[in-house]
């Protein structure tokens, strides 16, 4: 038909399968991340968290999803119906498109673009349009204020994030996500050890860009009800929710790929071959981790009272045992082992990074908006600029004068550290003129909304 042969479609088969797998599993993963968030928050606050639906709340995400699907979907009377409908779709689509360039393993990547990193940045910044449009279309002041805050926050923090990524890219020498990981593999060091400040700046900026606490001003519930999603309910609200978590996973994916060695296992340069085994001792870690999880779940299951809860918990144990078996079995197959173990380590690193997100959320109080702007423009951006210049100088010394990389990077980071200390102590005095009455005069044109 249409003169299309099998050879024409063959290059598209695996990418399409990968895309379907990601789109199918992402909502489930997001559901369980929300459960993890609630459980971790509860444990940090000495509570139990969800305990009722399933053992230790394990079925809570599914109950929540059913509730959201069945909830009434309301469109406000004076809302701009088309934009109100379009906005959440835009957010969630752009969140999902970014996965096209994320390398989950040496083989498990939908498309290895030459400009992969830029592509992810471009697409994920488009997701903010969903927030701004949704906030505007709701025709509500809370929503509009949330949307404007979101736009301002994105513009301010994208600069810092971009500069931090550029200094990482200088080390990697490529924009392709796959090449970046392979470079770290060849150099035998993760870039986070060469450029810790870039990693730090990117981490803070990425939390701000995904509107997570302590930078969740666009949806600050104590000021704006729910910010840009105040007027949304039911399934559309859950689309925004999905987009937010999808974006969190994407920014973690960028950080993991660029700074934390992507799909490489920790200590990839260390080889421990003992007892004449054909594989590294450290390659046994994934199987052992799953076995440990299975043992822990067995312990929890034995303490449960109800038979049905015990049954569900033992199903989880069985899942972990099967996964441990897969990890152990893949060691015997050299063709599959890099893919399966790579995927495992990539997901583990993403989950640890997300744990950092959650930890931040439960630890820091929310910033005021002027504090947020000050942190972005007066601390992160100058620091990122100095860091970028220093890493550039270091790399030139390595390439032109043959200095050892480690020494130049230590020097570059010491200079950046001094700059950071100086900014903390004196930046406020140098960069901000004292506030006068003139500053509080209204600006012409501002304040008219719709």
């Amino acid at each position: 038909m249409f003169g299309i042969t099998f050879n024409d479609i063959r290059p598209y088969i695996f990418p399409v399968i990968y895309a379907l797998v990601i789109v199918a599993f992402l909502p489930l993963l997001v559901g369980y991340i929300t459960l993890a968030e609630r459980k971790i928050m509860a444990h940090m606050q000495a509570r139990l968290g969800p305990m009722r639906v399933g053992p230790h709340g394990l079925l809570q995400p599914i109950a929540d999803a059913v509730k959201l699907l069945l909830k009434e979907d309301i469109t406000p009377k004076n809302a701009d119906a088309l934009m109100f409908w379009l906005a959440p779709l835009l957010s969630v689509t752009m969140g999902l498109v970014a996965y096209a360039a994320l390398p989950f393993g040496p083989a498990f990547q939908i498309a290895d673009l030459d400009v992969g990193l830029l592509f992810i940045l471009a697409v994920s910044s488009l997701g903010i349009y969903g927030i701004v449009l949704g906030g505007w279309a709701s025709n509500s002041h809370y929503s509009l204020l949330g949307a404007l805050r979101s736009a301002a926050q994105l513009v301010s923090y994208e600069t810092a994030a971009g500069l931090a990524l550029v200094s990482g890219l200088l080390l990697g020498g490529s924009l392709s996500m796959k090449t970046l990981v392979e470079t770290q593999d060849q150099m035998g060091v993760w870039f986070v050890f060469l450029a810790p400040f870039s990693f730090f700046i990117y981490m803070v900026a990425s939390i701000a860009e995904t509107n997570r606490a302590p930078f969740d001003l666009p949806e600050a519930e104590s000021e704006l009800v729910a910010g840009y999603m105040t007027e949304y309910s039911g399934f559309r609200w859950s689309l925004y929710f999905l987009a937010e978590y999808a974006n969190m996973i994407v920014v973690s994916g960028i950080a993991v790929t660029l700074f934390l060695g992507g799909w490489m296992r920790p200590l990839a340069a260390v080889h421990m071959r003992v007892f004449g085994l054909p594989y590294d001792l450290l390659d046994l870690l994934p199987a052992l981790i799953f076995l440990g999880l299975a043992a822990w779940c067995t312990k929890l299951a034995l303490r449960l009272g109800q038979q049905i809860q015990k049954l569900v918990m033992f199903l989880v144990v069985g899942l972990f045992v099967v996964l441990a078996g897969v990890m152990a079995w893949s060691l015997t197959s050299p063709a599959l082992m890099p893919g399966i173990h790579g995927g495992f380590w990539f997901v583990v690193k993403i989950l640890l990074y997300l744990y950092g997100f959650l930890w931040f959320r439960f630890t820091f109080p929310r910033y005021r908006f002027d504090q947020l702007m000050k942190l972005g423009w007066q601390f992160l951006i100058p620091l990122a600029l100095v860091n970028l210049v220093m890493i550039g100088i270091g790399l030139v010394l390595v390439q032109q004068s043959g200095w050892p990389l480690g020494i130049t990077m230590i020097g570059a980071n010491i200079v950046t550290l001094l700059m950071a200390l100086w900014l903390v102590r004196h930046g406020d005095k140098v960069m901000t003129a004292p506030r006068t009455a003139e500053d509080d005069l209204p600006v012409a044109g501002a304040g008219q909304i719709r």
Partner: protein
Amino acid sequence: MMLDSIIFYFFATLAVVSAIMMVTRRNAVHSAVYLITALLATAGIFLQLQAEFLFVVQIILYVGGIMVLFVFVIMLVNLDVAVRQMKFNRQSWVAGLLALVLGALVFVVYRKGGGAFNLMAPPVTTLQPNAEQVGTVLFQKYFLPFEIASILLLVAMIGAVVMAKRKI
């Protein structure tokens, strides 16, 4: 080849239709959304021509830049008034003339075919990764113009800050 044509005509139609919608909408926010669509469709055509760097830069710079336009529209334009106001297009004759000229131009090019442009032959295989190529050309062949443009932009940026702040 079949797929290529389908993709090209999809993006081309999308770009043209959303460009028309952009100028005909009364609501400024809707116009901005259609502008985004038109720019994204153009980016898609860049990608089809294997210019992936241009594709990404188009999205980051142009589409990302409209974000600021959005904020301006929301903050500065009173949409309820703008929708009710008469359009102030008193230049329909000039516009019609220009459209005629453009139409004639397109017609001539269409009649003469692709040879009218004296283009390079398209590469048979896939292009080299072009982020590096753009960088090399920009920083070696056109280094001075590039730096001059950078300084110009820096001056404009500082100028904007100076004009916006009452007191430095």
